[in-house]
């Protein structure tokens, strides 16, 4: 059974159907990339996954748990299975880097403070941030903030990590570094990842499968190898808009793996 399942999810926001009966199944251990143009409903899909939004119709399942109907402690328990990296990292601005990363441990576990900071430091080292622990988020670059956000997302050892536009606003080199981190986490920790992006290069580099969302529905799901050869018109226009040809993209992927 798939780890994350959307069953005919409908959501109306701002007078239009943002999700129009969306069906989706994401398997354990994969990196599923959700592609789509702005306003296609990909961020809304992500928010349904973690229970920030509730569907008007349909259900969202995380394993055996129905997150779309969970409330209170039940919702809290399901959310424990997740980590999430927000688009702008969403770090608390008045806390230092290490306080931000240790926060979930200090708030949600009974670990002594020293142990929590120790664990936070280990995650920061994993992401190459050992020098930045005492800095405030405002003193960090966008790429570093995202890495801190990622450290915070993995500090509770989640099964699933959701990434909301992890490479938006970053330069290409930093973007690829973030891609490598996502790939690394999947391989080393077996974490299931769901990535929302419109950076096709990133999608092709990290995805095990790519889903394209358009007008609130999934219109294509394919592995990167098949994705670049897709005949779907929307997919083609996406590929061409980012100068990826049937051959070129595949060679790119070979180059990074």
């Amino acid at each position, binding site marked *: 059974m798939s780890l994350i399942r959307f069953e005919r999810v409908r959501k*109306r*926001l*701002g*007078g239009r159907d943002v999700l129009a009966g969306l069906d989706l199944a994401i398997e354990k251990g994969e990196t599923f990339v959700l592609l789509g143009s702005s306003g296609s409903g990909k961020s809304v899909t992500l928010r349904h996954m*973690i229970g*920030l*939004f*509730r569907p008007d119709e349909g259900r969202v399942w995380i394993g055996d748990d129905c997150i779309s109907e969970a409330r209170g402690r039940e*919702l*809290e328990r399901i*959310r*424990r299975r*997740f980590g*999430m990296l*927000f*688009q*702008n990292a*969403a*770090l*608390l*601005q008045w806390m230092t880097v290490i306080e931000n990363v240790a*926060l*979930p441990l*200090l*708030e*949600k576990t009974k670990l002594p403070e020293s142990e929590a900071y120790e664990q936070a430091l280990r995650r920061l080292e994993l992401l190459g941030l050992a020098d930045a622990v005492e800095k405030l988020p405002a003193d960090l670059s966008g790429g570093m903030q995202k890495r801190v956000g990622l450290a915070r997302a993995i500090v*509770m050892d989640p099964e699933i990590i959701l990434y909301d536009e992890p490479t938006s606003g970053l330069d290409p080199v930093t973007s690829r570094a973030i891609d490598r981190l996502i790939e690394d986490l999947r391989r080393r920790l077996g974490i299931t990842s769901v990535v929302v992006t419109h950076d096709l290069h990133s999608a092709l580099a990290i995805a095990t499968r790519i889903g394209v969302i358009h007008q609130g529905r999934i219109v294509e799901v394919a592995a990167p190898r098949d994705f670049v050869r897709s005949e779907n018109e929307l997919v083609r226009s996406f590929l061409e808009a980012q100068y990826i040809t049937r051959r070129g993209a595949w060679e790119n992927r070979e180059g990074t793996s």
Partner: protein
Amino acid sequence: MITREPDQFEPAINPLGELGRKVLLTARGAGRALIMLGHATLAIRHVFHRRNRRATMEQFFITGIKSLGVITIVALFTGMILALQTGLELRRFGREVNIGTAVTVSLVREMGPFMTGLIIAASVGSAMAAQLGTMVVSEEIAALEVMSIDPVRMLVMPRLVALTIMMPILTVYTNILGVVGGAIVGETQLGVSMRAYFDNARLYVTNRDLYVGLLKAIVFGISICTVACHQGFSTSQGAVGVGQATRRTVIISFLAVLVFGYMISRIFYK
């Protein structure tokens, strides 16, 4: 949950429909603010946990110490103006010495909590709304909720505790400085000696005046915190939204200070 889905409405059919919607939205906002207040009140049981204790002390510092400068000046001048105006009128009857009572009674009963409330609403309340609003816009509140960390306990409760306790303390401070300001004007401008002024002041001020004034201060503190945090959490639409939340916080808190001030006076002084 603080993070909410954006509101969605069909366009209103006519002005009456628009009015009806506004009334309903206002009622809903008030309801949500009260629920948040209840939630924050329940969370006070966690105030002595180490992390909350630290956050609360920080809020005490922001509310109390950082506002002291402006409160000092406003309090002194309020007392001085009260003394000067009433003194000039009383001089016509040769009763300048009664400025002691006039200044003290009006400060303790009304002006002390009122001026303190306005200053705190404008400085601390607006800053609270702006900070929480910015946190909503930058998804920090959503991030807390995703981590199952309760934003009301973490952010609202320390502010509620700090404002509720600091408001009466600051009010007493305002009262004292105002009375002193009045004494200075009496001595220098109206020829009322300090001794006569303070003797006169003690004559008519009752304990009840003091308690009612402090009750007002507590109610103002709770209302300012509730309005500011609720407005901050209800922010939408980016930087513009933060500006609107701040503006609404100041307006609604001023109204709350005026209306609750009157109502409490009405109940205790019939």
